[in-house]
Every structure is written in C-alpha cells, then in structure tokens.
C-alpha cells in the first residue's frame, strides 16, 4: 500500500478531498516545437525538436511540408530532439510517408531509441508507412 506523495509530502492536505490545478511550475504554457530544414545536394533534412501534440500539429506539419517541397530526392525527418508526440503528431508521419511514396521520394524518420516518442512510433506502427530508424 502506498499513498500518492510528491517530495515526501502528501499531495493534498490531510483529509483533503481536493482540487489542484496545474500551475505555473508545471512546465511551459503551450506546446512548443522547433522545425529546422537543411537542404543540400537535393536532400532535405528536417529536424523537429520540442514537443508535438494536437495544439501545434497543424503548424508543424505545414513547416515539414514546406521542407519537403521543391522535389528533393530524399527526405530525413529527424525527431531525435523531440520529447513528446501524440496521435495528432503520429498522423503527420503517416501522411508524410504516403506523400513521399506517391512522389517517389526516399524518406525516413529518425527517432530517439527510447522514451515516449519511440514508444508511440513503435506502438502505432509508423514503420508500415515510412522507414523508422532509432538513434541513440
């Protein structure tokens, strides 16, 4: 048996039957991601870092698609700097895989070898849509 404790203190006051709202100390206010596109020799290296969820998925997908434009011969989507992804982010990977296959562009997604992004990419079966390479 255990009680939920944070820093050895009960989360709630004794007898508490409580209500706690996530506050200022609970991380950034909104989901933040950075997309960096590096194009050279006909290939596009697109690095997405930060966190990716329903809040920023549309904006991130637009940036990725801009990086894919212009007919590169190969695209690497580098997620090694990504700390979180949800199903809205996974859909970007499925759609990108379909888009690249239709355009006959070689593509791959590089993911951290463990942690939440790897867990989600593996659990959702993204490799069926686009090759996935884990990197430590």
């Amino acid at each position, binding site marked *: 048996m255990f009680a939920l404790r944070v820093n050895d203190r009960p989360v709630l006051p004794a007898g508490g039957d409580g209500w706690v709202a996530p506050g200022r100390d609970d991380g950034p206010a909104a989901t933040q991601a950075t997309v960096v596109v590096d194009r050279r020799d006909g290939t596009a290296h697109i690095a997405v870092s930060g966190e990716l969820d329903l809040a920023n998925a549309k904006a991130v997908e637009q940036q990725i698609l801009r990086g894919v434009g212009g007919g590169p011969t190969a695209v690497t989507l580098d997620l090694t700097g990504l700390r979180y992804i949800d199903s809205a982010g996974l859909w970007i990977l499925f759609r990108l895989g379909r888009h690249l296959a239709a355009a006959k562009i070689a593509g791959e997604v590089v993911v951290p070898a463990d942690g939440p992004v790897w*867990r989600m990419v593996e659990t959702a079966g993204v490799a069926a849509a686009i090759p996935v390479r884990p990197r430590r």
Partner: protein
Amino acid sequence: MPPPSDRTEFVHFTLPADAAHLCRLRHAMYGFLGALPLCPDRQDEIVLAVGEAAANAVEHAYRDQEPGVIDVTFWTEGDALCVQIRDHGRWREPSSGPQSVGHGLGVVLMRRLIDCVLIHHDHRGTTVLLRHPVHSPAPDSRPDVVPGAAGRPAGAHRA
C-alpha cells in the same frame, strides 16, 4: 519523512477542453508520477495514454457546441494507480479509414499502452478510466530507490 500512510489520496484538475492545456496536463502528470515507484517507461505510457484521452475530449466532445471542460482525477489504490478523464460533451464513434484523425488511433494507442482501459459514454459525457498496477515498495525502501524511477521526468520534461 512522515510515516507511510495507507490512505488513498487523489488529485483532481479541471481543465478547459482546449489543446493549449494539454502541455500543462502532461507536465503535471509527470510531476505526480515521479513520486511513485514506476520506471520511466511506465510513466511515459501513463502520460501518453492520459494525453490521448484528453486530446480526444478536446477534439471531439464539444464540437458544434459551447466549449466545455475536462475533469482529470488521479488516485492510488492499494496496488494500482488510476486516472479518470471525463468530459461532459458528446461521444462520437471513431470514423474508419486512414483519414480519420484523433479518436480512432488515440483509442487504439491507449489500449496498447495500458492494460486496463474502460470507456463509458452516455448523455452526460464520456469517461475514460485507465488503471495501471503498481507494486508497493518494501516497507524499508523508498520509492526513489527503484532504478530509474527518480529524476529523469522532471529533468527531461520540464522546461
């Protein structure tokens, strides 16, 4: 350190059903889970599943009606931790096909990440209950001696 307690405690948040609040919800979840004897992979699975349940509520529950809220309740039982994610809107059956967004994939992911996922919906809204077994530490050990259970989430997930 206070003596161990066998009293069940719980935490309840009410969030606007708005994608802008998903980030704070998961950072708060990592904060609570960090105190429990869970390895980082299990913490990730719980936070990811809660994120999917909350994202479904954001995306679907209040479509075509007044924006509402999501109630998240997190509590411990003797050998499990439970998270309930509740909205007060309408359930929408997942549409089929690769174009369906959210919902269908979100529910599949929740069920793959967490062994026990119960989803109940009626005219009052949708409730998702996630139940994850947790093994108590031995009486003379502290949760943070579990390998990998301490430290990482705060460093890795907080700004």
